[in-house]
């Protein structure tokens, strides 16, 4: 059984990894601030990622906040991040339901994912 909290944690983790690996992303917020404050004890980091489930509509909402690299067009970065995060999230949902009876709806139940991307700075 996959609890909703576990699912949210997995989604956050995969979303963070996907976003961070996208070309044009400098850091996830609070990214650089965390480095300066030395919060290196947290691993792996999901700062800058928020995951919420809306039962009405079986809707996973993922919010990403990031600092973009200055030599990339901001709107293009948000699009690339959205695509990467959507893909990663769908993989998590599909994997969770494969061979498992879960209490939380996943891809097979028509559950869907929407991703909001906010650029909080340009480095």
């Amino acid at each position: 059984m996959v609890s909703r909290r576990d699912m949210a944690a997995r989604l956050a983790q995969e979303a963070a990894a996907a976003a961070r690996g996208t070309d044009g992303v400098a850091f996830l917020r609070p990214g650089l601030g965390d480095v300066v404050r030395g919060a290196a004890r947290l691993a792996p980091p999901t700062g800058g990622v928020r995951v919420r489930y809306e039962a009405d509509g079986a809707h996973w909402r993922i919010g990403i906040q990031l600092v973009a690299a200055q030599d990339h067009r901001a709107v293009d970065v948000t699009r690339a991040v959205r695509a990467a995060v959507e893909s990663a999230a769908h993989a998590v949902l599909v994997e969770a339901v494969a061979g498992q009876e879960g209490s939380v709806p996943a891809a097979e139940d028509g559950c869907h994912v929407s991703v909001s991307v906010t650029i909080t700075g340009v480095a």
Partner: protein
Amino acid sequence: MAMNTNPPNTPPWQQDGEEDRMHGDGELLPCGRSLASLWEEWDDGDARSDPHVAECPHCTAALGRLSALQDFVGRATDDGTGAADGAGESIASRTESVTARVMDVVRLELRPGLTLPLGEPEEDSWIVEAAVAKVLRRAAETLPGVRAGSCRVRPVADDHVGAGGPLPDMPLHRPVDVHVELAVSMSWAMPELARQVRGRMMAAADEAVGLDVRTIDVSVIDLLDEEAVDAVAGGESERGARW
């Protein structure tokens, strides 16, 4: 201070705490390694061959952050802080500009403020006003003898949209108006200045951001004297293009 909820006799490096722990000389990672010694290893080039580091998620994450910071600092010192005449900036001033850039990013991260829409309404992409303002100010400052001050970026007001058709459902998805304040060298003629500043800022809004700008309102609020003009070292200052 954080409450210590750990069972008794828990070694410090296994304890949970809200804040980073200071222990002895410096911070400890949860695995017991000191952050300072990890960074030293990294500097000496030994970190990768350290078997503990290779297997430890805390150390590898810390190194990831360090390398990201190093990249950022490297880029900050590489691009456009040099004087065009090749005289070479002092270490102090380069450090200052890197520090300023780091603090810029940190400051923005702490105070997001108003967000502006990017792309189409259904895209759910946003950028904070402060980030756009920074990009636009930087664009204006590529002109010689121009220093940008306050820069406000706001969605156009309702009654000014005019013949553009009905407003989209999402109230913020509309073009933006920009207000920028400048300090300029006395050698600028105002109409030419306004034209050039608008041109640079519009180009930056489109090419660096992807934001639809309707108007740019330019206010000159101060004059730069000649010494200040020479000190204005924008990354792409055109020296010699004096008017």
